[in-house]
């Protein structure tokens, strides 16, 4: 089962809509609460990354009985140094975005904290694809 959402750059008003729909889908299939909790954060931060940094992108969610995979593929500037971007507080968001309260450099660290597997593929000048896997653990309530 796969869901796909188109995300537009700088469209802050709609940021969160895709994450909300993914959450509802997870509730409908009966994923564990812990899985849902983590996925919402991962999906939202990934969605927000596209909104802040890219021209446009696709957010997708693959639902399997034992895990959820969130992929955010964007057409953006790419990330020059992935390990730097994973550090808390490191941000390349423009000042006007920061003034809105977004882009505090917690996006990727939050995604990393809430996912079991994270893969970031980036080609500077072309775009970035972030793939995060959240395991649906039986004990997750």
């Amino acid at each position, binding site marked *: *089962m796969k*869901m796909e959402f188109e995300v537009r750059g700088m469209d802050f008003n709609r940021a*969160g809509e895709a*994450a*909300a729909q993914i*959450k*509802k*889908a997870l*509730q*409908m*299939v*009966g*994923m564990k*609460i*812990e899985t*849902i*909790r983590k996925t*919402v*954060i991962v999906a*939202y*931060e990934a969605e927000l990354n596209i909104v802040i940094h890219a021209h446009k992108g696709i957010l997708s969610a693959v*639902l*399997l*009985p034992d895990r959820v995979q969130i992929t955010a593929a964007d057409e953006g500037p790419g990330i020059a140094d992935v390990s730097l971007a994973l550090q808390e507080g490191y941000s390349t968001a423009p000042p006007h975005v920061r003034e809105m309260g977004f882009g505090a450099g917690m996006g990727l660290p*939050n995604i990393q904290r809430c996912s079991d597997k994270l893969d970031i593929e980036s080609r500077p000048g072309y775009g970035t694809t972030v793939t995060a896997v959240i395991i649906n653990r039986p004990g997750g309530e």
Partner: protein
Amino acid sequence: MQKYFHSVMLDTEKCKGCTNCIKYCPTEAIRVREGRAQIIEERCIDCGECIRICPNRAKLAVTDPLERLAEYKHTIALPAPSLYAQFGPRVKPGDILGALLDIGFDDYFEVAVGAEIISACLAKYLRDSDLPRPLISSACPAVVRLMQVRFPGLLEHIVLLDTPMEIAARLAREKAMQKLGLKDEEIGVFFITPCPAKVTAVKQPFGNRSYVDGAISMSIIYSDIKNALQSPSTIIRENRSPAAGVGWGKAGGENHAISEHWSLLAVDGIHSVINLLEEIERGGLSDIDYVEAQACTGGCIGGPLVPQNLFVSRVRMENLVKILHAEQEQLPPIKVDYDSCKLPGPIKPRPTLMLSEDINEAIKMLEQVEKITADLPGLDCGSCGSPSCRALAEDIVRGYGESSYCVFKLKEKLQILAREMVVLSQMKPPAMGRETLKDNQNKQ
């Protein structure tokens, strides 16, 4: 058997099947089928939004009648703080308490006192820094039920303290048992309620038991109180009416009662509450210590069962709180037993959105929902009796609807049928073939 008690019900006589309510329900719990609204009971949180929106007054709240007082040897009225804001500027809490005795209650216990106690407990609760932030108030039962259905991941944020109503009821009961030597079952405690959500909280409590025996609608008892206020037999009664506790009746009052060095947020109106909970769910607002969330716009003074206009009662309440605040000095300090105010256990989720118990099956069903949704017009017009095209798709997969419920789909089908009929009407059976031949010859 009915699994959940609900105060909010439908009057089938009055319902015209207009579909006004279906879009406003925060949990998508209403469908119109066979020309009547139906409430999906697992999903309903008794918020009363549908009562407000129904143009035919077909949604109602089931509350307890005053006649129930006769069932008990000793009856106690528990006025919600919002009741104090329903009358003119000269009517003080002491007058209202006097009126309640005049109506037939043997005693009263102010819920505002329960709120005063919980306010003190909250300060202690907030000091525990290990709890997830922000903590969320447990006072509005409609919000707690909303979270059980739509935000199960946030249930651990709920403050596990009992509501002011329950605290007041327990103390009132204990007092009656000690002072009058009455047995538990001889005492009838009745809450004067601003909303159906509280009625449900009494009949189906979050804790092990409710200390309240019944809930009487504020709008039903309103005229009795008004009459009693005019009667010479009604005298002003002793009242504590703590400013901080009375203020709980309106939005922001709860936060106001907690000491100010915390970072506090107040939100009211069910749809605003939903937006805020979504924000918390996405990992936001961890800098906030406590969220006061009330389902009704304006707080309890905006409840579905209050008689007075919200804007009028807001000013009444603000003025009253100011007066009470000035008198505050003379109040003796209240005794607070923190441990007895705690809820026995965590609030459990209500997974009512699940398509199937079996996750493999549920994923397959969700795929179908997506497919059907893509095929529907996406206008969310509500004519099908479901709140949105997606909701109809869900209903179809759950066996609770058909694609022909969609008027656009129906029209499409009719068009196909009409075209087929034209084709069919031009076809002629062989027995008629000859005549056609003759006709043709004649024409030539």
